[in-house]
């Protein structure tokens, strides 16, 4: 069953406008929070809700908020991470485009809870048309008194600004995002100190994903217990899933956590099955960084249980036979897909996006791309496959930010579950020629 909380009014004409958003109950959480709740009481509701970071890490939001340092006389900041760049993920864009006020409302309520008087929404530069939508919505919110000085006569002041990024996946990492917001290269910082202690301009800062911030609105309106009752176990609430690849109905779906993966892929309510009647081969369930799983393991855990759309079920079996919910970027591949070529697009991506600070990532991502290129060019050896495995192993855990892990995991899982494909390309380079159109794109020899 579809459970719409964030997207409840997505089909209402004009929901992107303040007037219609208000008619549908919009900004009620701001009234409730500012007029009837203390900041600590809001943090408590968010803790009770069990809400976990929707950007990919899944860290409990209430706990993250409770870490925020509150030294006297020092500004605190809330920064929204709208740098959505994880391949396969486009849910934040959808939410901001269709219901921009949901994010703005969440920013006001959350900023009040954290004691922030200036907040920023950092949007990836490629989404400039979204920035325009947000700027208009913010202007309307200011004009209506939801932002600015003395909001609702409560004495609470908040300024909200949009910041444009300029093309860098790494700025989705929270300390790189803060560096970028300070007008620098997006090089992640060494932690500790964590942003909760020393973040933007050295001040205590919380960085939360768009969907996380938007989820604070219904939690404040209906209470943390209500939200905790939705979903399954420690995966409370709903999740926006970005579905793409070889499916009949790509798009953004809001699901209640706990539906089966099988239902999500094959039900007409969601992906509507595999395109052109083909068979399912593999799925990347949570954005490019998470381990790819073959059809049998994405549908059923190694223990033979139905795999569910939840943090715990997708991770069941560890990396040996499981994966992660991640950002909810759900990429589906049919039986004709070359896993090695798909991996090459990921490896190229991470090489392009490595900031270059840590040697294992800077050098390793380049090597992985080159070795995959060599294999796809028909010159690979079995030793190259082993070398690929060794390189990813030496990147994982050896960098200051998670980009290194994110680059290693797709390589490790592709070899773990599809080693036979790598070996086939190595032993029988002619097999590569049968994969259509590959050579056009990469300037590889077509001999």
């Amino acid at each position, binding site marked *: 069953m579809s459970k719409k909380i964030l997207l409840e009014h997505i089909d209402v004409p004009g929901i992107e406008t303040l007037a219609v958003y208000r008619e549908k109950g919009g900004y009620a959480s701001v009234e409730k929070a500012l007029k009837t709740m203390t900041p600590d009481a809001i943090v408590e509701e968010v803790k009770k809700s069990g809400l976990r970071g929707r950007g990919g890490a899944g860290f409990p939001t209430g706990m993250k908020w409770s870490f925020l340092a509150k030294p006297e006389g020092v500004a605190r900041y809330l920064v929204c991470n709208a740098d959505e760049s994880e391949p396969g*993920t486009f849910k934040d864009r959808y939410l901001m485009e269709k219901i921009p006020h949901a994010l703005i409302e969440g920013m006001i309520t959350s900023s009040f809870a954290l004691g922030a008087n200036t907040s920023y929404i950092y949007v990836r530069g490629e989404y*400039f048309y979204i920035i325009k939508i947000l700027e208009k919505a913010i202007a309307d919110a200011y004009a209506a008194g939801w932002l600015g000085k003395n909001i609702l006569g409560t004495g609470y002041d908040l300024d909200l600004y949009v910041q444009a990024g300029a*093309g860098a996946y790494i700025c989705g990492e929270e300390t790189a995002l803060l560096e970028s917001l300070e*007008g620098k290269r*997006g090089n992640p910082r060494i932690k500790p100190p964590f942003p909760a202690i020393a973040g933007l301009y050295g001040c205590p800062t919380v960085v939360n994903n768009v969907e996380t911030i938007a989820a604070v609105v219904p939690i404040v309106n209906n209470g943390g217990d209500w939200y905790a009752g939705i979903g399954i176990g420690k995966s409370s609430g709903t999740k926006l899933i970005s579905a793409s690849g070889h499916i009949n109905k790509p798009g953004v779906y809001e699901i209640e956590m706990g539906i089966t993966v099988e239902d999500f892929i094959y039900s007409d309510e969601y992906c509507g099955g595999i395109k052109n009647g083909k068979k399912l081969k593999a799925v990347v369930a949570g954005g490019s960084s998470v381990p790819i799983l073959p059809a049998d393991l994405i549908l059923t855990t190694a223990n033979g249980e139905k795999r569910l759309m939840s943090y715990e079920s997708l991770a069941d079996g560890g990396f040996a036979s499981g994966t992660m919910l991640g950002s909810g970027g759900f990429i589906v591949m049919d039986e004709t897909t070359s896993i090695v070529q798909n991996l090459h697009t990921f490896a190229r*991506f991470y090489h392009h996006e490595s900031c270059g600070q840590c040697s294992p990532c800077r050098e390793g991502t380049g090597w992985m791309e080159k070795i995959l290129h060599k294999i796809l060019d028909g010159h690979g050896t079995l030793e190259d496959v082993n070398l690929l495995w060794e390189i990813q192993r030496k990147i994982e855990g050896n960098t200051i930010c998670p980009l290194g892990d994110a680059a290693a995991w797709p390589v490790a899982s592709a070899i773990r579950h599809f080693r036979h494909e790598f070996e086939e390309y190595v032993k029988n380079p002619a097999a590569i020629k049968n994969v259509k159109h590959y050579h056009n794109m990469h300037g590889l020899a077509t001999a």
Partner: protein
Amino acid sequence: MSEIKFNDETLALVQSIIKRYPEGKQKSALLPLLHLAQAEFDGWLSAPVMDYVASLLNIKPIEVYEVASFYSMYNLNPVGKCLLEVCRTSSCWLRGANEIVAHIENKLGIKDGETTADGKFTLKTVECLGSCGTAPMLQIGADFHENLTFEKVDALINDWSNKTEHSKYLDNSTFRKN
């Protein structure tokens, strides 16, 4: 090139953007200002343009160069009037991005990264643009063109063949004047 200076409207916007950050933290305005500069000065950032941005923010030119060279949306060399940015990461690749790139290459007679002899088009393959559900896709300025077919690509190229202005990510109405 004529004198490098923003027009008065942009200069007012620059002052408004600088006010978004605490006093003394005006460097935070660097990324937005580089976007405005690229939009106003022919779609790329020359060294004199970057020096001008440095002077507006009272920071050293090197602080601008190191940032401009880090982010993929800043062009450090001239580009065609129409910059075609074609996504090619997984989801787009699965749904035919390679064929779209090959089609553009054939139609314009250029390769990835090149500009047509008449200076009208530059083709650039890019990494995931967050449009995976409507793949394959390409971006021209701020506009996403999704669910691409060869026919849609041909129509876009025809449209842009007749335009005289540069494709832009933003204009002076994008950022709110606070």
